[in-house]
Structure formats: C-alpha cells, structure tokens
C-alpha cells in the first residue's frame, strides 16, 4: 500500500519540518475583522500599484495605464480614499452590528463611486485626447478595487446574517445605481459603453437570442428530463443506464458536441425537406439547441429523481391510505416535496446553458458569444469584454433569480 507508506513517512517527517504552534497565530490583536482588513489591503494595492483606467489612442491599440490620482477629480479621489479609510477603521472596530452595517453601506457605495469615477476619468481623458477615436478602458486597479469593495459588502452581509430580503435589497440598490449612472451619461465615454453604443440594436438582438436559446433549451430539457427522472425513480435499473449515458455526454467539450452535431443535422435537413422548412440546419440554432438540451438533461433528470427519492415512503403510504389517487399523490404530494431539489437542478442547468451558449456563436447560433469571438478575431478587447461581461451578468442574474425562487419554496422544508 503506497498510500500507507507515504502516510507513515509523512507522519514521521512533517511534525519536524512544520512544528505545530500551540496557539494559532491570530495576527495583530488590533485587527478585529481580518477578512475586511485583507480586502482593504487588496483595494489599496489595486489603487496604488495598478492603473485605474487604460488610455489608448484608438480601439485596436492597447492602452497605457493611468493611475487613480491622475484619472479622477479631487472630490472623487477623496470619496474613494475616505471609503477605504472607513473600511479600514471598521476592520479595527470591535464586532457589532453597527460596524457591519457601516461596512455594508460603505462597500456598496464604493462600488458605485468606482463606477462613477471610471466614467469621470473617461470623460476627462477624452477631453485631452487628440482624436475622437481615443479609448478609455477599465484598468486592473479598477477591477481589483471593485472586487474588494463588493466582497467587503458580501462579508458585511454574512456577518449581519442577512436574510434574503436584505441581500436582494443590496443587489437591487447597486443595480439601480449602476443603471442610473449609465442613463445619466456618466459612463458613456468608457470604451465599453462606446462599444455598446455602436451596436445597441445588435446587442439587444443578440442578448434576446442568447436568452431565447437558453430558455428554449431549458424548457425542452424540463419537458424531457422530468419524465426521464420520474421513470428513473420508478425503475432504478433503467435510471442507472440512462444516467450513465447522459453523464458521458456531459463530459464531452461543448465545442466538440456542437461540431459533431453539424454532420448528422445537415444530413437530416437534406434528407427530410419538411425539417428544413422548420429551420433545421447543420449550423446555427438547431445544433446549438440540441447540444444545450443534451447537456441539460442530466441535471434535470437527476435532480427530479433525487427530489422524488427524498419523499419519505411513509408519506406516500399515508397518502394512499387516505384515498389519494396516484395522480393526486404525484402532483399534490411528491412533486411539491421534490420541488426545491428540482429547482436547484434548473438553477445549475440555466447557469450552465448561459455559458455554453457563448460557444454556440462559433457554429453560427448567434447570442452574446458573437461579440466575444468577433472581438477576439479583430483584437478588439472591449468588444470581447462587452460579450463576456454581459454573459457573466446574465449568469449571475439567473443564479440569483433561482436562489430567490428556491428561498420561496424552502419555507416549509
């Protein structure tokens, strides 16, 4: 047994190499919230060591970094600095709800202040630029500070043991703030906003296409996967075989599955004209939809089966004993009890499909991936970002939506 020998050697050697301290090192005694202190350090490093924005003469050249203090006006600089100082102070304060509430408000405010600051920097830099094609993109310093500020708010929410309502409120406030900033024109000189402005209509169309592709795939996957999961629960043997096959399918890389479907689907479309009239093609939305459905079947079917299996047999026996019909037992008892598990399956599937649909742009299915791959092809990083960030926001929104739904169904569990 190799592992046994290894563990024996490790057992002998490790205590000498790494003597275990009797007490864990707790850091300077003054720091009361080490998570927040770490995040503040990260934010300060982001502000000092990296460019807040990048400035480039045109869309295709890479920019030079511009430091925070050179990029924004004095009032904005003071607001950002004061926010980090407030968070630093909060990390030293003794534990309490007041401290955590302060960190929450400051963290959320800082997220918006950074966005507004980046917009302001872009406007200021555009005024000094020799040509209108000059671009201001978001720099590493911006992203680091944004990450740290957002996590400071998350940490505060966790310490406050915030319920779903407060979490939703925090997200809505930041979302509404960001939208208000965008609507006011504060952000419109940012390269990302320019890319968006240049193709507003195409963007909305591709966004809709992306959502339609995902929604269609998830709906079909539910229509097929739920009965499949039901069958697997009633006949575990068949279930094992079906799940094994679907699991193999899941491991195949998305682009490979998309590609493998092109041949059979074009053949099918050529052989059956009626299908062609329905829009079945070797490339485009058809293989994308088929592949997304195939990927989505396993989580839907498995969670349906797991949800139904979580219904106690006593509950079903009691239901039968009281004279519920099999249909009433399924719809009135088993499905409602299985619903939370089923919804977590939908959550996995939807988030997964939103990501996979990006790749579908490569086979001509459209969607937000169009911008990503167009941008990669043209070396236009802002276009890449436009597609990628929109996808991430879409995935996060779907995830939050399902979490909310889950919270509603979990009341009685």
């Amino acid at each position, binding site marked *: 047994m190799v592992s046994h020998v290894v563990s024996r050697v490790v057992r002998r050697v490790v205590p000498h190499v790494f003597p275990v301290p009797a007490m864990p090192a707790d850091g300077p005694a003054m720091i009361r919230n080490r998570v927040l202190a770490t995040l503040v350090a990260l934010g300060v490093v982001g502000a000092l060591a990296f460019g807040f924005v990048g400035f480039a003469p045109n869309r295709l050249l890479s920019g030079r970094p511009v430091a925070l203090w050179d990029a924004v006006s004095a009032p904005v600089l003071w607001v950002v600095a004061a926010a980090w100082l407030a968070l630093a102070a909060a990390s030293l304060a003794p534990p309490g709800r007041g401290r955590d509430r302060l960190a929450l408000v400051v963290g959320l405010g800082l997220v918006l202040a950074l966005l507004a600051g980046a917009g302001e920097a872009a406007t200021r830099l555009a005024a000094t630029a020799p040509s209108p094609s000059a671009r201001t993109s978001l720099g590493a310093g911006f992203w680091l500070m944004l990450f740290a500020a957002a996590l400071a708010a998350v940490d505060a929410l966790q310490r406050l043991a915030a319920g779903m309502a407060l979490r939703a409120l925090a997200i809505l406030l930041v979302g509404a703030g960001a939208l208000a900033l965008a609507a006011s024109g504060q952000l419109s000189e940012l390269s990302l906003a320019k890319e968006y402005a240049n193709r507003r209509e195409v963007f909305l169309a591709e966004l809709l296409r992306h959502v339609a592709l995902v929604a269609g795939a998830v709906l079909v996957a539910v229509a097929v996967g739920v009965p499949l999961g039901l069958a697997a629960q009633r006949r575990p043997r068949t279930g094992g075989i079906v799940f094994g096959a679907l699991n193999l399918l899941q491991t195949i890389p998305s682009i490979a599955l998309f590609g493998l479907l092109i041949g059979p689907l074009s053949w099918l479309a050529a052989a059956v004209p009626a299908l062609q009239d329905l829009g079945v093609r070797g490339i485009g939305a058809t293989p994308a939809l088929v592949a997304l459905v195939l990927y989505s079947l396993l989580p839907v079917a498995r969670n349906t089966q797991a949800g139904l299996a979580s219904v106690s047999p006593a*509950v079903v026996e*009691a239901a039968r*004993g*009281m004279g519920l019909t099999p249909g009433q037992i399924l719809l009135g008892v088993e499905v409602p*009890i299985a619903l939370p598990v089923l919804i977590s399956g939908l959550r996995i599937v939807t988030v997964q499909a939103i990501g996979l649909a990006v790749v579908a742009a490569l086979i001509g299915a459209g969607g937000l991936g169009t911008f990503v791959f167009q941008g990669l092809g043209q070396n236009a990083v802002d276009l890449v970002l436009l597609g990628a960030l929109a996808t991430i926001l879409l995935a996060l929104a779907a995830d939050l939506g399902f979490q909310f739904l889950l919270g509603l169904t979990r009341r*009685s569990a």
Partner: protein
Amino acid sequence: MIELTRVTKRYGDKAVVDDLSLTVARGAFFVLVGPSGSGKSTTLKMINRLVGIDAGAIAVDGRNVRDMPAEALRRGMGYVIQSIGLFPHWTVADNIATVPRLLRWPEARVRARVAELIALLQLDAAEVARKYPHELSGGQQQRIGVARALAADPGIVLMDEPFGALDPITRDALQGEIARIHAATEKTIVFVTHDMDEALRLGTEIAILDQGRLVQCGSPADILRSPANDFVRTFVGGADFGLRLLGVTRVRDRLRPNGALAGPPVSPDASLKEALSLMIASRRDALPVRDGAGRSLGAVHLADLARA
C-alpha cells in the same frame, strides 16, 4: 362490521396470510397481535386494499371491498401508521383537512372540523394549526396523525403500530387518548401491534396471529385464562403472566361483601392489578371498595387475587 372470509395473501410461494377468517364487530377495539412476520400488518392493509387479496373475501358492512373503488373505500376509513407520514409541505391544519377536502366538504365545515379535532386531541389550536410537521415533537406529530385519520368522521379506523416509535411516556399518554376517543365515539378500530401489553390494555377483542394463521381470538381475559396452545401461552406468558391476568380482571369480580374496612378505597371497575398495587403501597392485605358516589360495596382481599 368487517368480515374476513378465508383470506389468503402470497408473496411468491410463501403465504404471509393463510386462510384467515375473522369478524370485527361494530364498535369493537379489535387488536391484531403477533410476532413480526405473522401477517398482522398485511391483514390490516388488505382491509383498505393497500395490499391486494389473493383468495377469499373481505366485506365491510356487508359489501365486498373489491366491489368498491379503492380510493372511495380508503376515504371512508381512517388510517394511522407508525411512521406517521404527515405531509411535510402542508401545515398541521391542512394535513388534518386532507380527507374532508378530498370529499369536497365546504371550506367552513372543514375549518370547524379541524378546530374540533385539535381540541379533541388536546393540542393548543392557536399554536399548532399553522405549524409545519417538522416543528412538532414525535408525540405531537402522531396526535396530528390520529386527528387526520378521524377528520372525515369515518366509522372505521385502521391503525398500524401507531405508537411503536414513541417513547414510553408519550406512548402511554396516547394509548389513554385513543382509549378515551374509542369510548366516546364508538368507532370500530382495528389496531395492529406486537406489544402484548398494549393489546391487553386497549383491545376489547384480540386476535393472535402466527405465520399468517389465526391462533386464537377472544377477549383479553379469555386469552389469558385459557390460552389455546403453547404458542399463545408463551406469547402472553413469561414472568408477567400473573400480573397481566390481574390486569384484565375487575375488582367487582372479587368483591367480598363484608363490613367497612379502613384504608384507601378502590373502584369496583379498577383492575385487580391496580388494587394489588394500592395494597402494597398502603401495606394492607385488604381494601374497601367504593363506587363513584362513595357508597361502600364491600372489600377486596389479597388472598382472593390468586384465586382462579
């Protein structure tokens, strides 16, 4: 009235219920008792057709259960199981209302009935009705299980080891509860247990099963006084046999009409076991017997307890 006529149930080659005939009189507290694998639970489940009948017939109030739609049959009987099986996603009130709603009672009547049952089971209505099952203790959950079975006021209640999973104190309380409800409502109860003491305490009639066959059927006293064979003797016997016998005999059956005695009085309806306990506790070998109005009826003597 429930009549089982030569009922047989097989799983594969093995007959788990074998040519069983029984009659459960209206208003009886009928206990099916036997070791595990004796077919008592299967017998119970054949009455509401949760288990199919291979041969023979079961009639409820003269109608063959096979001629009734299974769901309608079940809605007309209460059903309580050991693992309770409350619906976890419904409140207590909704759980109790299951069968009345299936029977499409008007909502006002459903609500009134739920309130009535919560009171009958001595639960705090305001507190319990809106709770979910997982917020209740096991004993409270089974009270709700019993309430749910009684909800549509069925003439027959089937109970499958309903108190088997409860702690001894809760079990004792619920046994008292179900005995009280039986006496007050005159429902026919068919009750499965493997616990002889529970059977003797609750049953007006006891059927002892072994390997799918009926071994003996009769009142608790009948079974204790004249066990049909060695199996019954072992099953009801053991070290506690004498005490169990005292438990099923009333004080009035051993009454001596002699003059007034000193000591704590005992009711003529108390069991001899209770009388014995009182004698030992009060260090006397005889106790005065008085009825509910306090009138002296005579005395019960220690020496008489051992008399057959």
